[in-house]
């Protein structure tokens, strides 16, 4: 079992710039914030309708800062910027934060580089919930969320709860038990999803859209609900970064460091699942972000959760909001396709640069 020092050593990167950045996580964070701001400006400024950059800024200044500017724009432009683009960009960012942080948490908790936010059945639970909602012919909106969002949220949490309760009493070691139970329950739920899709008739298109994920339905109200869950969960995970560091070393070393392993594991698992469930309820199943962003961050700054968690949050927000912008500009193609097309080559490049046996 590797000690923390060894873990840090094994991930050392030999390239000059990344070693430089590793020494200066603050600089990296500032660069990330700048990139996030650029993504925000582009995301609000671009879309299928052309709004002049000056008008975009004027609308934002007028509505957000209360500046008394001469109105040179149409009411339609104001609606597009304020009611469609801004909540959409912010939703993409918040979901990106949630998925990346949840991914980093699951990878650390399960000590498995292939873990992502969906590893314990959240995705299949959410997908089954969403497809059942499509089969039920009821139209109801609570806080602008439909039955589909509600069922997806509940489905994701129920799936994790089932996996956790089954694994807790498993004779296997806790991590193996969780992973294998998650896989088994996920397969069962996927069968239910396939059946629901088979029976869904014309609703199939809606299920399919949900499975692909996207930010088409973003609104201020939805953003408010989802972001409160995601940001509270993210902060709560963040303050447990030390526990996560301990758990990454293994159960015994963690216990020696004074970590209440069972309790901390359960809390972190619950928080990461809550964050994931809120994300998939509002945006559908968006893959790749939660798997790759934490790895990208670790490849650059090393495995310390106190750095990995905040920088993953930043990276997730940048990647997902840029991916959504590209998806929109290409005519509403699935955002998961874009995240993979942008992220995978970059990830491969970084993997090639990490010469000395990168591990979690």
């Amino acid at each position, binding site marked *: 079992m590797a000690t923390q020092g060894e873990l840090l050593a094994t991930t050392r990167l030999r390239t000059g710039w990344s070693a430089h950045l590793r020494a200066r996580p603050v600089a990296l964070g500032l660069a990330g914030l700048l990139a996030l701001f650029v993504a925000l400006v582009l995301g609000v400024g671009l*879309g*299928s*309708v052309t709004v002049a950059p000056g008008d975009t800024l004027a609308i934002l200044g007028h509505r957000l800062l209360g500046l008394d500017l001469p109105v040179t724009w*149409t009411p*339609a*432009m104001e*609606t*597009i910027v304020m*009611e*469609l*683009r801004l909540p959409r960009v912010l939703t993409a960012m918040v979901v990106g934060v949630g998925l990346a942080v949840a991914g980093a948490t699951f990878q650390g908790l399960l000590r498995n580089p292939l873990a992502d936010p969906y590893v314990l059945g959240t995705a299949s639970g959410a997908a*089954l919930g969403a497809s*059942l909602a*499509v*089969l*039920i*012919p009821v*139209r109801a*909106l609570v806080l*602008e969320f*439909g039955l589909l969002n509600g069922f997806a949220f509940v489905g994701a949490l*129920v799936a994790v*709860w*089932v996996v956790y*309760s*089954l694994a*807790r*009493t498993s004779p296997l070691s806790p991590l193996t038990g969780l992973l294998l139970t998650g896989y088994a*329950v996920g397969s*069962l*739920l996927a*069968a*239910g999803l396939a*059946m*629901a899709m088979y*029976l*869904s*008739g*014309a*609703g*199939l*298109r*809606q299920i399919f*859209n949900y499975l692909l994920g996207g930010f*088409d*339905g973003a*609104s201020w109200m939805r953003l408010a609900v989802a972001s409160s869950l995601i940001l509270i969960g993210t902060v709560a995970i963040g303050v447990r970064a030390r526990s996560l560091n301990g758990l990454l070393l293994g159960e015994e070393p963690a216990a020696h460091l004074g970590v209440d392993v069972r309790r901390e594991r359960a809390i972190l698992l619950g928080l990461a699942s809550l964050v994931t469930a809120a994300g998939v309820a509002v945006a559908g199943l968006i893959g790749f972000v939660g798997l790759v962003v934490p790895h990208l961050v670790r490849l650059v700054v090393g495995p310390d959760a106190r750095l990995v968690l905040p920088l993953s949050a930043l990276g997730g927000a940048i990647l997902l909001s840029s991916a959504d912008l590209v998806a929109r500009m290409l*005519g*509403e193609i699935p955002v998961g396709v874009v995240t993979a097309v942008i992220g995978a080559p970059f990830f491969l490049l970084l993997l090639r640069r990490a010469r000395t046996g990168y591990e979690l």
Partner: protein
Amino acid sequence: MDALRHRSRLAALAATVVILAACTGSATEPPTASSTVGPGATGTPTPAPSPSPSLNATFPLTLTDDEGAAVTLAARPERIVSLTPAVTETLFALGAGQRVVATTDFDDYPPEAIPLPDVASYTAVDVEKIVGLEADLVIAGGNFFNDPDAIARLRSLGIPVLVVYAPDLQTVLADIELIGQAVGEPTAAEDRGSAMADDIAGIRAATEALAKPRVFYELDATSEIYGPADASFLEEMITLAGGDPITTGSPTAFAIPLERLVTADPEIILLGDAAYGVTADQVAARPGWGTMTAVRTGAIRPVDDVLITRPGPRLAAGLAALARAIHPDLVMPDPSPSPSP
């Protein structure tokens, strides 16, 4: 420990029950037929609060759409967005084509509609573009034809959205009148509706006394064989056109197993997929199809699928085409002069 294990089993069992319940629940309750259809689908045109079906359009106006939503129009819509090809055809047929500002990217009729801006595809609705066009009425397709989320989004932004969905011929006629009321062309809509009703009655009368051959209407057979589901719109059309429709055997199944089709033994096969290059020779050459009467007698005929299945103002012509494909010697009554756009 035992108690815990028991609880976990219960949880797993509960999950299974939920899945099973979902399956059986939806099998008995097909989402296509009755469930999502509002009061507008019962046959007669939905009455507007304007007391009589007055021939002068009066705004403001509140209509109930096919999914039961109340849609209020403050004034006669001048910038109309159509999100389905059938609605586009209806708008142009009613003389409201000048006021249509955007359609879908798969609209193909009438020709004037094709160059208009596209705001919807098969998979997505571009809400931003609709807002940018300053639309004052959007007419969308129900039963998931257009994304329900996008419809809710448009409504939350204050743009009236009228949702139409016709599970049967009666509702197609009702929808034309509903759209006519919404766009302030109730007279044209009533004329068109009654002309279509007359044509349909004429075709029905002409085919009523004839023998009813077993008809299979092929929608697609590239991987599975797709045909009319039970109680579907297409089943009704074939019946009205004087055929005995072969269906998939369930209202929610759209594919028919080859065994079932062979057993049903169609006397006529209509190729709704002819536009995609499927020919009678190809059908005859398919393994397992040779025993069917239609294949042995060569009664495999291409039809114009758009005309027959699009729930718009050309549907009476579609029914006539279908009747002629089933009964080639049929003497048809003259169709009503169509007030083409």
